[in-house]
């Protein structure tokens, strides 16, 4: 008696095989004939549209199932999202007080007005769309696929969007930046005319004003060398950020150097708000100055002091939220190929969550002068 009796199985397989061949052949003939029109001018039939929308909605829902959204979003996060939205999204989707560009309106399908459309989606679904984009619609994927933290910033802002009027939007997205009214000649002859899309100051602040969002680093008083290297890393894609990469790549090398020197020449905008607990600061100080030999963590202050190489950033008066986010990204294994990452990523990976909070609290609480004293 043979082990497996085969005939029925073979018949079924044969049936499926022939069916597949017939379908493939038919599909090929249709595509080959060119009968299908790919024009964007005509729009879809209502039925096609319904099917496509149905498919898209369910695809997003299913793929977003495993994503866990945060319970709430900080103001820092939505402010960061707003700033990027203005630069990267408003052109197609419009915003309160910012009309959608007519060219974008002629896309198929036309980009939806998000102040109403976001109500149809859960947070995790918005996250999925922003991160992955949507095929055949013109919605692009996020530039830096591994930077989930940035994508959440957009989601945080989108949740706030329906409540905003033109003034509120402007305050949030332009970060209090005042744009000088331009005269006709300037409008007619210069490149930068409107919206301050790429103005660094929208996020990083300028002169005595620090970043509006604490997730955005303070650039004031960093060494020019460090800032230039960072911009070059973003421009070349060595550092991953869906927010900074487009901005940095839009600048010429000379512009990058000028803007770096501008920020390097600024004084620190003043200590950030000190909400850190004294105990955390003390633990952070211990770790920053002594390291943790058991966990193979070197002392932070050996590199992040005022006498160190210009290639290293200064961390005193830096926002705790920014430091925590950066360290946590490294810990999650989000590493870029920049020269500074090569040094910091392995060190950051050996910190535990508590140590990350402590050390961030410590740096946020120090000023340039105290950190200098401690090293010397």
């Amino acid at each position: 008696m043979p082990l497996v009796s085969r005939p029925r199985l073979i018949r079924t397989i044969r049936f499926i095989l022939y069916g597949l061949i017939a379908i493939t052949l038919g599909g090929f003939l249709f595509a080959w004939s060119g009968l299908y029109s790919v024009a964007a001018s005509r729009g879809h039939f209502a039925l096609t549209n319904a099917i496509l929308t149905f498919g898209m909605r369910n695809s997003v829902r299913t793929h977003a199932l495993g994503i866990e959204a945060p319970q709430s979003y900080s103001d820092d996060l939505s402010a960061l999202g707003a700033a990027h939205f203005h630069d990267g999204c408003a052109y197609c989707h419009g915003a309160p007080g910012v009309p959608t560009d007519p060219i974008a309106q002629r896309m198929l399908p036309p980009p939806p007005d998000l102040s109403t459309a976001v109500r149809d989606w859960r947070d995790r679904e918005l996250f999925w769309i922003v991160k992955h984009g949507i095929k055949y619609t013109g919605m692009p994927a996020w530039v830096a696929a591994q930077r989930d933290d940035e994508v959440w910033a957009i989601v945080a802002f989108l949740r706030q969007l329906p409540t905003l009027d033109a003034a509120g939007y402007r305050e949030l997205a332009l970060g209090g930046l005042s744009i000088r009214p331009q005269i006709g000649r300037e409008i007619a002859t210069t490149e930068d005319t409107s919206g301050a899309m790429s103005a660094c100051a929208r996020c990083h602040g300028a002169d005595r004003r620090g970043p509006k969002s604490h997730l955005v680093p303070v650039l004031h008083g960093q060494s020019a060398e460090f800032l230039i290297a960072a911009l070059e890393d973003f421009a070349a894609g060595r550092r991953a950020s869906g927010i900074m990469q487009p901005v940095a790549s839009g600048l010429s090398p000379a512009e990058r150097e000028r803007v770096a020197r501008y920020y390097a020449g600024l004084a620190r905008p003043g200590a950030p708000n000190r909400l850190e607990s004294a105990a955390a600061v003390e633990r952070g100080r211990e770790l920053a100055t002594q390291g943790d030999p058991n966990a193979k963590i070197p002392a932070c202050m050996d590199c992040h002091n005022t006498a160190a190489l210009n290639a290293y950033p200064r961390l005193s008066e830096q926002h705790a939220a920014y430091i925590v986010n950066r360290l946590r990204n490294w810990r999650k294994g989000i590493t870029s190929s920049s020269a500074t990452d090569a040094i910091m990523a392995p060190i950051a990976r050996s910190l535990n969550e508590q140590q990350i909070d402590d050390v961030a609290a410590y740096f946020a609480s120090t000023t340039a002068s105290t950190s200098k004293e401690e090293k010397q």
Partner: protein
Amino acid sequence: MVDAVSYPNTLPRPSEELAQLEAIWATPGGWRIVTDVNNTVIGLFYTATAVLFFLLAGILALLMRLQLAVPSNTFLSQEAYNQIFTMHGTVMMFLFAVPVVEAMGILLLPQMLGARDLPFPRLGAYAFWAYLVGGLIFFGTLFFDLAPSGGWFMYPPLSSSQFSPGPGADFWLLGIGFIEISAIAGAIEIIVGVLRTRAPGMTLDQMPMFAWTMLIFAGMIVFAFPAVILATLLLELERAFNWPFFIAARGGDALLWQHLFWFFGHPEVYIIFLPAAGMVSMIVPTMCATPLVGYRLIVVALIATGFFSFGLWVHHMFTTGIPALSLSFFSAASMAVALPSGIQVFAWIATIASGRLRWTTPSLFVLGFLVIFSLGGLTGVMVAMVPFDWQAHDTYFVVAHFHYVLVGGMVFPLFAAFYYWAPAFSRLALSEQLGKWIFLLMFAGFNVAFFPMHLTGLMGMPRRVYTYPAVMQWDVLNMISTIGAFLLAAGIAIFLVDVVRSLRPAMSKTAGNVWGAATLEWLPNNVYGLRSIPAVTSAYPLWHHPQLAKEIEDGRHFLPGSITGLRETIVTSPFDATPQYLLRLPGPGWTPFLAAVLTAAFFMLLTVKAVVLALICGLLGIAMTVVWMWGSDLKPLPPVDIGANLKLPTYATGSLSHAWWAMIVLLLVAGSLYLSYVFSYLYLWTVSPQVWPRLSALAPIAYPIVSALLLVLGSAILEIARRVLPGRSRSSGAFVGLAGLAAAALTGALVIDVLAQWRAGLRPESDAHGAMVYMAAFLQGQLTIAVLAMTGFAIARSFAGRLDRKRRVAFDNLGLLYHYTVGQGLLGLLLVHGFPRLAG
């Protein structure tokens, strides 16, 4: 005693009897084949899967040999090599060596013993599917860069969460723990099968030697595997919950792992080797056409090996700085274990001398085995010499040594077995001509690959290195080894060609007794095994009784058909094989397959921390098992006649029942797990007595006393419950109440103990003592949960009218487990509350 010459059935058999037998035992067709539980089908699948893992692990070996062929090679990265060598060792040991032997046992034993099937067909099917699914997932981790890289021995602290943070080590721990459980399931099946389902009259001195080796193999598994199961439990608890068993800073000790691992790991080598030796003991007499010389000596050797191999685990730890005198004890034990091997080698040589060896492929593989294994044994004696081992340990000398022992001692006999037994399970025999080429390639390739490793080792090449600089000048020898490895692989590749060309698995009309062998598996077979089961009067029945085949086919011996309309086999007494009762066996069913898949899913989902999904799968798996158990305890029928007016009962309880024996073996497993735990507790105390608490910090003595009283009370209540079982199939409120009370007492004792420790301020993650105390509760908790499940099962059966004074196997097993759990609980209380009072 049954006389073979006066046939049980002298009259011609009814014509429909054979058709009925075939219908009852028919293999399900198409996809439903996964529901089959018959030992032949499962055995063939099992063997094929094990060979698949052998090939996969072999490919990993070739990758390693390519990497090492030249110095400073960049063919494999450091991390890839480390994963590959870890997987090679793990897969070869856990997914090939033990399973393939178990597979051969499941395939061959019933036929050899004259049984229709093994006593727990569903358990065998479960063990196989669990192994297949778990093994494939485990191997698959390699393709996702998730494979463990801590070596097959997984020494902490390298395997701790600090130094192996990824899920790789968890895959190893849970995957291996799970595959070991599957191995234990197989071992229980084999022990009960060999002891209780032999053909009538097959006394222990007439049992085929392979059955002897499988019996001892399974017995060793029962005592060796629990040690490593405990070790994997400890390490996983340390990784997941930070219980410091192996962390020196909190009173743990890295060497505890080594003690537990090698207490399993050394017997493991003999666990692998013994059945292979058993195969040789079957092949040699056939090929020389003469009985085995020194049958009794070989049995002595097997039993001695079984014991001695447990006394030399420390010889893997000669370099850990243990006092010289301790080392010498284990050096002595290592010498002792050489004796039984010597006995067997010279017994085979004596058998060859007493007959005339035929030059067949199995003979060649056996001769190759004798030479290679002898050399491996001799280098084994060398590394048993402590001073020499200080140099040879963890070098390529040891790599050469254990490949000589394992490949020589196990793979060569296995290939001999493939060629020898193929005609019993295939329409065509494997090719004798190709077989000789395969042997030549494998023998030459093996020696070319592994002999030079002795020298590279002496030249200072350590194991587990992914590369070496040219200046060491190990390159020529390594290149030779690599060439040899590919020769060996070529031999195995041709073997695969031969298998594809010639192997046509079949249940009947096989190539048959082409070698003129003498044991029962060479009689005409079908899915149901033998048509009728003879009374055995000799160790070589086919030689002493040439007409046996014809008589068997004609149904002239016992049980020529199915009497009850179900699958059945004769259960005999363990020593003299007197028929005792007729066992009705379960047929095909989905439950073993589904339960295995769900158990595998439970473990693997746990590894990737999908706890909810894992729990769902686990519960479904348990549900499957309950469904399967529900139908297994069949209603007793009146005694039946199996031929020659031999009336056998159809139901047995107590120590007569095969289920009782299986439960006893399972309790031996649990007991040896607990002894490993007691050893670990005391061992950690000797290492760090400072973390053991002062008297004042201990939980008040009243708690353990109450706990102990509850335990004893529970046992008493359960015995009363036994008395009130109804005489007839109906439910009994008194029984249900008492059984529930007993379960509650057991649970209460555990809860009180844990509460006492917690209120005394003890925490598992604080130090090794705390971890060990909660570990006792953990182990007790596992058993308590099992008792609760079985109590629920017994209560449900009572409600369904399926439990009474006569039909009470479900209750008997609960009773055994319950009393054992009480005993373990009392010992635990004594240890955890008593020992610190004694020592402090």
